[in-house]
């Protein structure tokens, strides 16, 4: 969803709607999880919406996004409908992958969503690959990897950033540093607390941004996309943020390391209410504009949920389809 730059009304409306959609879908999914409607794991993106929205606002359908286990926000921001997403988590025929994938395998290649993932790390390498094919085929596309702080210690981070750098690939590496990998603090997992600084080891720019400030994220992404599209190579963006729900639904909100106080502190920095205040103070939109967006989104998500719940199950006889493209 590439939004015309310079038109802050359109941009703000898109960002606000996208963030609010992610929030509303995630909170709906959390209730659905408790009700037993979701059959596998469900990692929500609550608190981190500004990252997906801020980056994806600069992308077109030809840009390829490779996401994580916590990928509903990326999918929605890339343009997957709440209906197709919820139905997939419900395991239904109408889901985005006809129920083959679930939460961690959401694909919509026609709009450049190249998958959420159950494995931490590979998205970094695959985004480099999308950058490689963009260069090879000359199609102007950009590869974008979203990944958590947990992926930074993984070999894929090193290999992927290095490969993208040496071939000058059009790639954005977007680290969503929410301070924890499940329960392991990043401060424990790394002697260097700063992810962005690692970029210099690979000879690429590294940019740290406030991941709860959607406009700051967007600005960093736009500059990185400009570089990528101009053939200047990859950029590493570190968006510092926080998840204000548990690692996965059904787990504890706090744990061995996270405290109630810390969660409360970050709730104060909520990216959506923060953007709302900003919009109102700038006067770009009125409170009733924003309320109308919220009401629309709530209706859309409730309808999507009902549709998903009423959708048929996929036929078990189709389970062996799509293993191979070609039959022998």
């Amino acid at each position, binding site marked *: 969803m590439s939004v015309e730059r310079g038109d802050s009304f359109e941009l703000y409306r898109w960002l606000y709607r996208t963030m609010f959609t992610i929030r509303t879908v995630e909170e709906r999914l959390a209730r659905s999880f408790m009700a037993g409607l979701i059959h596998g794991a469900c990692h929500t993106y609550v608190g981190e919406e500004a990252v997906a929205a801020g980056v994806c606002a600069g992308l077109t359908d030809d840009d390829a996004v490779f996401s994580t286990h916590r990928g509903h926000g990326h999918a929605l921001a890339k343009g997957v409908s709440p209906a197709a997403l919820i139905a997939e988590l419900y395991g239904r025929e109408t889901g985005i992958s006809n129920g083959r*994938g679930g939460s961690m395998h959401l*694909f919509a290649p026609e709009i450049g969503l190249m998958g959420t993932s159950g*494995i931490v790390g590979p998205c970094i390498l695959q985004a480099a690959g*999308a950058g490689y*094919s963009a260069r*090879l085929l000359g199609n102007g596309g950009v590869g974008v990897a979203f990944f958590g702080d947990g992926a930074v210690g993984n070999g894929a981070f090193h*290999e992927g950033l290095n490969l993208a750098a040496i071939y000058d690939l059009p790639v954005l590496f977007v680290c969503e540093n929410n301070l924890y990998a499940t329960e392991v603090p990043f401060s424990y997992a790394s002697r260097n607390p700063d992810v962005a600084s690692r970029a210099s080891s690979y000879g690429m720019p590294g940019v740290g941004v406030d991941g709860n400030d959607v406009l700051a994220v967007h600005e960093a992404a736009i500059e990185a996309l400009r570089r990528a599209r101009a053939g200047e190579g990859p950029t590493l963006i570190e968006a510092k943020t926080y998840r204000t729900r548990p690692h996965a639904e059904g787990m504890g909100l706090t744990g061995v390391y996270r405290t109630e106080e810390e969660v409360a502190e970050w709730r104060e920095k909520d990216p959506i209410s923060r953007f709302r205040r900003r919009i109102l103070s700038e006067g770009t939109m009125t409170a009733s504009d924003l309320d109308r967006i919220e009401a629309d989104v709530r209706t859309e998500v409730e309808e999507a949920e009902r549709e998903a719940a009423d959708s048929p199950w996929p036929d078990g006889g189709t389970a062996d389809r799509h293993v191979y493209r070609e039959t022998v």
Partner: protein
Amino acid sequence: MTEKTFTEAAREALSDAMDADPAIFVVGEGAGERGGNFETTAGLYEKHGPLRLCDTPICERGFIGMCTGAAMTGARPVVDFMFTDFILDGLGELINQTSKMQYMSNGRLKMPMVLRGCIGIGHSAATHHSGSYYPFFVHIPGFRVALPSNPADAKGLFATALRGEDPVFFMEHRHLLNLKGPVPDGEHRVPFGQAAVVREGTDATVVALTVMVHHALQVAEELSGEGISLEIVDPRTVAPLDVETILASVRKTGRLLIVDETFMPCGIGAEISAHVTEHGFDELDAPIKRLNGAHVPTPYSPSLERAVVPDRTTIEETVRELLAE
């Protein structure tokens, strides 16, 4: 037909495919200007340049993952591993990503990726440069595995892999790389899943893979002097596996030996023998036999190395045992 080595024949398939399809690119350590450790890409860099003949750092996981992403986005990567042993550094990418991408995406993504590498025991290469490992990949849904045993099949199977839409392992045995043979000129494709009966016979069927095809043929030639008639079947691809041709042969001979240099447990021999007992039990006049390389890491010293690989002597012994049953 022109006489070519195995490597030349495969390179011709690659060169033709690269001329026809600008989305094909090759990555590997030395695959660029150097022309490949085994001359797999010799002469192609001059023609196609560094983006299509891409030298990589030593990061097998990294470039497998990168090529997976490239295949997802419209390119057709060929990964040149030099030695298949090095694939193991990228197994997670291959098995969790490459093989499953089409399925996870509900058939909306294609995965036209070719993974090639040298396999096989010999030249005192020892245990980090002699692995074959193809049974792993046969076990995984989503992969194709081609094991050419001669130059013509090297060209034909590679051409099929390069034009296909699914991920293919194309594995080249070290003892075959310089083998010469007649190769069809121009367009030549060998379809996957079609075994070749490389010698007809009536007394026993020997299914042999890659270099073992040649040993089995020599044994068959020697035993023919004693009036023993062996039928030799070369599956050519093990995923998919042409069970029908093997069953048809066993119907004729009533006896089956499978010769494979790789390990016996959960191997290709086990797979073939399960199919034959399930679908051809009544055709068997004797229990099926398997002859494999020893279930040990590959040793270095020539005398130790020889001891772990099936050869003409052990094949002949096993054939005699099979016929005596």
